[in-house]
């Protein structure tokens, strides 16, 4: 029942908020905030309590609420399960979610859509909970799509600006393209094993009977879904644009939780991917390429949120490298730590944006450290964590991934991973320096930061600092506690302790190299980059991928659409019909001109008819 509450509470409060907003004239922010923050607070308490139970070794929970659908062999229970994986996910989603809700109270203050925002936000929490708790792929897919819907609604929250809505559309469409693959994978999977039940455990039990080629296809298609949701090549284009939404949205959905759903899903299907390492390799390749690409782009961006967005995408790439190479524990570990520091970064950035009245260009900022230390120091911690500086949270998780990569048959992943780490350190420090350290461009007189905005940063800063210890590898005296707790079917190789130390040293050095480079270039301020080199321009223009998509997909689509109307409908179908009806009418007109009023002609028709017919008769005789 408590599991059901995890879903019912946020959905219920979302419904309540929505009804209040739509059908009453009640606009008390306090009421909306109370309901809106209360629900996630409650579920995080429940989740933590349940998660604690799991830590203590309780049986994983399964509850079937009702039969969702039962057609022939397709029997889908509306069932939830709370095992170790969902416990980890649920715990950090709900806790970080609650903090961001709290943050949003400050961020959204005074907005006319305050109530609507929390309705959407709670809706997202419900959908995310559904995704995480789902006991079978269909219910998971429902949650999966609903988080996408929530994301769409929230990106387009400021819908007065058409560009925001375009971004929202882009997000939903890219997600839907991924879902196209996802649902095909599910249906194929159902076709293969569905007869014997379709819950995850039932699938796992039968998975060995599935043909390998089909299994690979399913694996790839599932990953296509993850590409959309987790912004990997080639479906990543929506994520930077998604920053059009309010910053809490970016923090919660497009950094900490929803975008990691792809990783979660792959981990959820670990029993499947274990059987098809080739597909895993494909995932890892996509992951590392995405990481590299986005890290490169991030180094040239000037929009503060977009830098973080590309950074998110880059980190997601890491995670996919991990799960692709079979280090599921490491992947989820990074999901877990990343949630803390990335949420923190976004919230900090949100506070900055609010303070600067919605200025988002880092080159127009500067010197904010003095004004908002409560924002700066947490962000510094988060930056260090993200850059993988020991002993912050990111170090351990990233190190686990790099170790798995180096130990794999393809150490190139490790090398590229280090390159990405360097770029990460560089662009993060660049951001931090330009915003907080570099000389201010304007004179700020008073920059007020509401406690709603700054206080939630502190627990997250703490998390960014220490969350890594939970999953600390054996080399550092930890016991891979998280990985063991998750007990996923890891098959990644392990490094010796010695090489692991070497790797850690190397990665820290690289991070500091990145910091140093950034410091040299940006510590004393810089102007917006004017790209000179071809490569730089490419990076700045994000490799022209958006333009390419527009030219290859959108334009032909519109052409075809017009073509359907003008050629197929008007010329072909109606043209053919018109030919017949017009022909008939023309014949009719010609026939009627015989009706010229002259009686002698009439007699002629008469008699020619008679003679022709009598000739026919005579011939027949």
């Amino acid at each position, binding site marked *: 029942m408590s599991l059901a509450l995890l879903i019912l509470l946020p959905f219920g409060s979302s419904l309540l908020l929505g009804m209040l907003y739509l059908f009453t004239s009640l606009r008390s922010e306090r009421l909306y905030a109370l309901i809106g923050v209360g629900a996630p607070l409650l579920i995080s308490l429940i989740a933590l309590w349940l998660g604690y139970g799991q830590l203590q070794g309780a049986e994983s929970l399964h509850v079937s609420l009702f039969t969702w659908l039962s057609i022939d062999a397709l029997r889908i229970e509306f069932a939830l399960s709370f095992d170790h994986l969902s416990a980890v996910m649920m715990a950090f989603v709900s806790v970080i979610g609650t903090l961001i809700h709290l943050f949003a109270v400050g961020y959204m203050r005074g907005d006319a859509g305050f109530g609507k925002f929390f309705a959407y936000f709670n809706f997202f929490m419900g959908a995310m909970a559904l995704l995480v708790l789902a006991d079978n792929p269909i219910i998971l897919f429902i949650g999966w799509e609903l988080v996408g819907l929530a994301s769409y609604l929230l990106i387009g929250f400021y819908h007065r600006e058409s560009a925001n809505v375009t971004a929202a559309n882009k997000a939903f469409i890219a997600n839907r393209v991924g879902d196209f693959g996802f649902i095909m994978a599910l249906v194929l999977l159902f076709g293969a094993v569905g007869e014997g039940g379709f819950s995850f455990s039932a699938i796992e039990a039968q998975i060995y009977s599935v043909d390998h080629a089909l299994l690979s296809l399913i694996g790839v298609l599932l990953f296509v879904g993850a590409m959309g949701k987790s912004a990997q090549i080639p479906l990543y284009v929506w994520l930077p644009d998604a920053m059009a939404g309010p910053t809490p949205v970016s923090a919660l959905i497009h950094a900490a939780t929803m975008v990691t759903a792809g990783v979660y899903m792959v981990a959820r299907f670990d029993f499947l991917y274990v059987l098809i390492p080739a597909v895993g390799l494909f995932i890892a390749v996509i992951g590392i390429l995405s990481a590299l690409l986005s890290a490169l782009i991030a180094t040239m961006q000037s929009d503060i949120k977009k830098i973080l967005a590309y950074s998110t995408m880059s980190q997601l790439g890491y995670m996919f490298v991990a799960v692709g190479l079979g280090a599921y524990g490491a992947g989820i570990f990074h999901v877990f730590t990343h949630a803390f520091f990335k949420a923190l970064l976004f919230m900090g950035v949100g506070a900055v944006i609010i303070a600067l009245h919605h200025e988002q260009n880092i080159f127009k900022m500067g010197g904010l450290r003095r004004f908002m230390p409560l924002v700066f120091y947490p962000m510094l911690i988060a930056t260090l964590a993200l850059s993988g500086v020991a002993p912050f949270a990111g170090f351990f998780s990233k190190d686990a991934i790099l170790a798995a990569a180096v130990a794999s048959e393809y150490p190139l992943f490790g090398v590229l991973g280090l390159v990405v780490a360097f770029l990460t350190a560089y662009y993060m420090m660049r951001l931090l320096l330009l915003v907080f350290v570099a000389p201010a461009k304007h004179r700020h007189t008073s920059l007020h930061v509401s406690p709603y905005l700054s206080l939630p940063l502190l627990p997250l800063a703490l998390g960014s600092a220490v969350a890594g210890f939970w999953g600390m590898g054996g080399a550092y005296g930890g016991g891979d506690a998280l990985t063991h707790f998750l007990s996923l079917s890891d098959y990644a190789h392990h490094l010796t302790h010695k090489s692991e130390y070497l790797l850690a040293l190397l990665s820290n050095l690289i991070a500091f190299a990145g910091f140093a480079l950034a410091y040299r270039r940006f510590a004393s301020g810089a102007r917006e980059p004017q790209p000179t080199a071809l490569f730089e321009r490419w990076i700045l223009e994000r490799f022209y991928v958006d333009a390419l998509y527009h030219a290859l997909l959108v334009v032909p689509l519109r052409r075809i659409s017009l073509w359907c109307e003008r050629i197929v409908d008007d010329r072909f179908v109606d043209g053919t019909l018109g030919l017949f009806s017009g022909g*008939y*009418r023309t*014949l*009719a*007109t010609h*026939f*009627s001109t*015989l*009706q010229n*009023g002259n*009686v002698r*002609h*009439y*007699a002629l*028709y*008469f*008699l*020619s*008819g*008679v003679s022709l*017919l*009598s000739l*026919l*008769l*005579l011939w*027949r*005789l």
Partner: protein
Amino acid sequence: MIYELFLILPMMLIVLGALMLMLLSHREAPLNRNMLSVLILALAFGLTLSRLGEAHSVFVFEAIFGRSFIVDSFSTLFDLMILGGAMLTLLINHDYFKSRHYFDGDFFALVLFAVFGMMALSHAHELISAFISLEIASLSIYALVGYNSDNPKSREAMMKYVVLGSLAGALFMLGLALIYGATGSTELGAIAAHIAAHPQDAHTMLIIGGFFVMVTLFFKIGAVPFHAWVVDVYHGAPLPVTMLMASTFKIALFAVILRIYLGDFAALGDFWSLPLQILCVLTLIGGSFLALSQSNIKRMLAGSSVVHAGYMLIALNAITLGNFNASESILFYLMSYFISSVGAFGILSFLAAHEHKQLTFEDFKGFGYSHPYLAAMMSIFMLSLAGFPSTIGFLGKFYIFTGAIEAGQIALAALGIFVAFVSIFYYFRLIATMYFYDTPKTEQHFGFDTTTVLILLMAILSIWGGIGTALLPYLPTPDALIELSRHAITSLD
């Protein structure tokens, strides 16, 4: 003797009535001649009605006339239809007669003579008597068509009808002569006997003669390519006359056609079917061509009457191929066509009486709003003529097509259905015109008078004939009509 006299009493009544009206024609008597003629027709109708349902087949005054006149249940049914049709035609034009000055006693006398001719036609059991009856009817109608001699259109219509009609009459006589030459008799029974007695013969002369006779009859019903007069004459004739021609006269013509086909030429069916099929195709398509391209409602209805003749030719063709059931479908179709066309013409006449319109499609714009009730009824008649289900016209077509399929004529049935589809264009054009356009005119009051009540009756009959079911006890269903027809047909065997 007395019994036989009783049998022909209705016809005698009509003739006497006609003569009486002629005598009264030049009196300035304050006499409603229309009602008088209706009364006479009603009397005859009543007398005939009393015989409905009893099976009989009597050659009247065989000693004098030979076997040239027969009174049987077939002719009784047709008499009823003709009398009823004429009666309704006169009644429904009540307003129209009052609105035009030229309808004097002679007009009604001529109508009665025409009716007499038609009745005689349905009784004719001999080609000469058939011809004479036909001429009586035709000559009266010639005169009626040109009755309004002040109207150039009316005169011209008469001219065309007379010239072409006489030409057709000459062909009939030629055919008659040839048949006489071949068989030595013109009595239908004797001809049939002759065919039966000489099964090996080619019967060339007989077939050619019969063909000429049929051509004349097809001319009168307006089959393509003998149709050219139809549109012009229907257009030029005064409305009541058009109605008479389109409905009642056609009924009488089919009486004699059926009698000839079912009795006489049945044995020669093989020869008939091919020319008949050609005629059928030509008539259906040509008729739809004609109807499609008209902008005057009267001409459109005239064109479409050609199509309706085509439908009945489908059934006739089925008969020649041995499906004698199809004759019932012709009877039913005649009734259904009669009901809906009289209704439609009735509305035209009502309008002509009250508004002196040209009666083009343009004139009907917004009719649905100036005359909502009449427009609704007009729509019903159009639907019925188009053969839309839930109207009597649909059942008529249903029987015809089923009969054709039964006779193996699927192609003809398909063509018929196709032409019915084409007819959507011109019938629904009128409905569309009535309802889809606004009119500056305000809604006219719908009052009950003879004309409107009869139009309403026709509308109700159209619907009842289409959907009247056995669910409503005590009401006869369309089945009753078909039973009646079947009963009548049996007397021909």
